[in-house]
């Protein structure tokens, strides 16, 4: 038996909603002296209050507690632990998130819509059993899937991960995907995620990080009535876009991330959502992209810079972005 949701569509109408933020610890990042390495509900509440943000979608950072911790810290590789702390990927991390939002910080729970995370390709039945336990204790509003963080391909959802999709559809849970067009990330390719989206027209999806401003992917998402795109970590994404612009990207003024958001909302008014990716609006790390492939990031942004992108929209654009977010979360 699911517990009753504590937030409803009407609570969110006309409000500023951050569609993408994280709660939890990043063990490898802390141990390897990278950034960011953590965030909790209380910290997010301070950021939101300081910036006039009313609500936030929150989900875990990583599934590390299912894996061998020393190996993750040393290499970034996910190797199942001999005696896993989590029973399945994300079991502890999802529980921490939900307990933080509802039990540890009840004074802030009215701000947060917790999503739970899943690994799209591993221990599917066991993950479903774990989610069934959680939904009996806590309201859950959707799913976040970060294929790269799980080192499982998004396309697994059309194969071994199919039962997950049926489980989510029964609950009317929207799905937010980390999405990339970076060729060094074989797990989260936007083209693969769009295949999943197109295969499940009855479900709602959001692709993160402006899908790298990749024109074809954005056009394809905008053509799907069940797909949205968020701006998470826009400032540092745009910093990257300036440095790594390709002909496949939209031809925009990348000198200023706030202008990029304005242009995206002009081009795709019913598709774009505003999101901060807090605390990942900064990213200073060496990330394993695939076995033996590492990528260095030295990117710095702030919640204020993320919010500035929202503030630069016209009131009509802000209203449209808010409506898009509510539709993604609750449906039409």
């Amino acid at each position: 038996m699911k517990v009753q949701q504590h937030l409803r569509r009407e609570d969110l109408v006309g409000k500023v909603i951050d569609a993408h933020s994280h709660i939890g610890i990043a063990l490898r990042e802390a141990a390897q002296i990278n950034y960011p390495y953590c965030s909790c509900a209380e910290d997010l509440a301070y950021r939101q209050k300081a910036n006039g943000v009313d609500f936030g979608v929150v989900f875990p950072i990583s599934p590390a507690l299912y894996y061998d911790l020393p190996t993750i810290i040393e290499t970034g590789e996910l190797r199942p632990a001999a005696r896993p702390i989590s029973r399945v990927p994300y079991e502890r991390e999802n529980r921490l998130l939900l307990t933080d939002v509802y039990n540890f910080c009840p004074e802030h729970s009215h701000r947060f819509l917790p999503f739970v995370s899943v690994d799209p390709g591993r221990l599917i039945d066991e993950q479903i059993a774990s989610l069934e336990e959680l939904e009996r204790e806590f309201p859950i509003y959707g799913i976040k899937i970060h294929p790269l963080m799980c080192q499982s391909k998004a396309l697994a959802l059309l194969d071994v991960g199919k039962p997950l999709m049926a489980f989510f559809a029964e609950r009317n849970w929207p799905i937010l995907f980390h999405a990339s067009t970076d060729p060094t990330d074989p797990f989260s390719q936007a083209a693969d995620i769009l295949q999943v989206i197109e295969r499940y027209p009855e479900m709602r999806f959001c692709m993160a990080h402006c899908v790298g401003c990749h024109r074809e992917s954005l056009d394809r998402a905008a053509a799907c009535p069940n797909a949205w795109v968020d701006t998470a970590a826009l400032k540092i994404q745009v910093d990257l876009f300036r440095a790594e612009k390709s002909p496949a990207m939209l031809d925009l003024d990348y000198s200023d991330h706030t202008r990029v958001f304005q242009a995206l909302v002009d081009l795709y008014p019913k598709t774009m959502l505003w999101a901060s990716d807090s605390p990942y609006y900064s990213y200073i790390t060496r990330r394993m992209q695939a076995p033996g492939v590492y990528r260095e990031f030295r990117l710095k942004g702030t919640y204020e810079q993320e919010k500035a992108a929202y503030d630069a929209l016209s009131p009509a654009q802000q209203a449209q972005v808010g409506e898009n977010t509510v539709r993604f979360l609750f449906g039409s």
Partner: protein
Amino acid sequence: MIDKHIRRADLVGKTIDIHSHVGIQERVAAQIGFPYCSSVEDLAYRQKANGVDAGVVFPTGPALYFDLPEFVESGRLTRAARPISKAPYERENRLVLTDVFRFCPEHSARFLPFVSVNPGREVKQQIAVLRELEQEFPIYGIKIAPIACQSKVTELLGPGESFFKFFAERNWPILFHVAVSQGEEFSQAADTFRVIQRHPELRYCLAHCIGLHHAFLERADALPNVWVDTSALKIQVELAFQDSPLMAFPPERFACDLSDHVKVMQALVARFPETIIWGTDSPYHSYITRRLQGEGVYAEFRLKGTYEQEKAALDALTDAQRLQNNANALEFLFGRREDATEPK
């Protein structure tokens, strides 16, 4: 050593949080306890929202030197076969310093980082690591939490003795976590005073109002080189109000109105004006966890407070009391202007 980025003059008259943490708590997160993390940016938001100008920051725990799966499961610290940290706190100290000075340079003007040490393990290696760190970053003092290390504070009088010369050469003050509760075998206030009396050349601060133990408060007040912080006052007072064995118990308890932590702050400052220093313990102004206190002894905590409630205690003081509190913090951090042996 590189130059300090904050000097005494920068902090005169400012609101200083003398006790706060930066880092992650692997075991607490995995066991669904709270709090489980804090970063410099997080602390900066708390400070700004509450009109706090500066804060002393240090790590949460030394887990990365130990066997992480074992620690997460049982709470016991046993040396890892291949430790991630070169010595206890090596990675955690570096994370605090890197966060303050490199990841968040926009906030570094707010923070005085202390480094943490384990009082008895791998002392030579710990000192070697601190020598490396001080070449890269300004360091303002030392935090020692014996229970977080599962090493008795008295190990400072044994294997940890060489720390004192090292700290004294740098004029680093030491902030001690202390306890008066039975069963907490690592951080007993009486043991901590033994350490302090053996090394009067250094400055010390004893945390958490020393469990509101009247005689220990008097003893600290009588020493010219010892201060006491109020960190996590709201939940400490709640414990005392409930007659928890974790706090001093009558007749040893400091006599005051325990119904409100703000009143306790006023009473402490009225009685020990030159000794009490305000600190929040952020994010540990809440504490919801099961902690290993000694061999096979666990204590359950279900305590909730906020940074706002901690700050309310300071705000309830008079202007003159707040100024004195600031002066106390500066003397602990930088030393007395006058002869250190002068009575308070």
